[in-house]
């Protein structure tokens, strides 16, 4: 930009709008990278958890999910080590606070659900467990899908809103199970219980995090 002392009102407005839009784009790209990396890490993590569960024939590897926030944080720290940080802005803060709130809800719900379900399994009958058991994956997926859509609304990226909604509909409305049921034999479908819900988490990470993240990064 050159020194121009004859700035017209129109040009001034153009510069201001351009800079505000550039700030929004920088936040979009930063969020995109965050979504993309979290999506890829989630997909990798779900493959690892499913693999360990299959090998050990126990659901013990699901405990690895509690280390997940730390894994994401470490990966992001490594990726951002040489990047110019995007400064705090109203848009960035809104996105960050949305995710912090929803991830806190998801984490608290998961911890309570694990303890609660354990109590039901040990002290109550299977019928009570069926009625009163807390379902972690569907709830967490719903919360994350909502977070993706809210992020889209804040960043004015309608594709993100649709990806959030799409991942919610595919995974929460039974379409995924229906498709798997049609494609697999009953025996194969039954075997899936060993890796469940890693298949759901993998698909959500692909549709709800990785793809929209990739789109945000690529957008010029």
């Amino acid at each position, binding site marked *: *930009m*050159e*020194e*121009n*002392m*004859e*700035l017209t009102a129109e*040009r*001034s407005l153009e*510069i*201001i709008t*351009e*800079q*505000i839009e*550039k*700030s929004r784009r*920088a936040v979009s790209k930063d969020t995109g990278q965050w979504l993309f990396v979290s999506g890829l890490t989630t997909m990798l993590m779900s493959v690892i958890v499913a693999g360990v569960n299959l090998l050990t024939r126990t659901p013990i590897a699901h405990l690895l999910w509690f280390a997940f926030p730390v894994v994401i944080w470490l990966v992001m720290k490594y990726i951002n080590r040489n990047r*110019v*940080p*995007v*400064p*705090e*802005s*109203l*848009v960035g803060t809104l996105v960050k606070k949305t995710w912090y709130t929803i991830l806190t809800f998801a984490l608290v719900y998961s911890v309570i659900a694990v303890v609660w379900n354990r109590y039901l399994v040990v002290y109550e009958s299977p019928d009570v467990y069926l009625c009163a058991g807390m379902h972690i994956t569907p709830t967490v997926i719903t919360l994350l899908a909502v977070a993706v859509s809210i992020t889209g609304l804040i960043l004015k990226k309608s594709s993100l809103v649709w990806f959030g909604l799409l991942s919610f509909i595919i995974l929460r409305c039974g379409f995924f199970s229906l498709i798997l049921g049609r494609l697999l034999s009953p025996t194969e479908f039954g075997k899936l219980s060993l890796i469940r819900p890693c298949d759901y988490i993998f698909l959500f990470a692909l549709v709800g995090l990785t793809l929209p993240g990739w789109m945000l990064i690529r957008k010029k």
Partner: protein
Amino acid sequence: MNFQPLDPLLHAELRLAVMSLLISTEEAEFPYIKEQTGATAGNLSVQIDKLSSAGYIKVKKTFKGKRPCTICRMNEN
């Protein structure tokens, strides 16, 4: 509505761009402002000094590890 006339100091494109950028952020590091405005380091440095001298922005020089880091923020007064 009557507006105050714009300070001639802000009639420069780069200075106005820096101010617009800082309005939407709490504070920004020098490399970020350089990247967003597309200015050269030397020119940007001069314009930031002018804005700082006029009291529009505050400049904090610090270190990030062993590397110097200049942080700019709008002056609230």
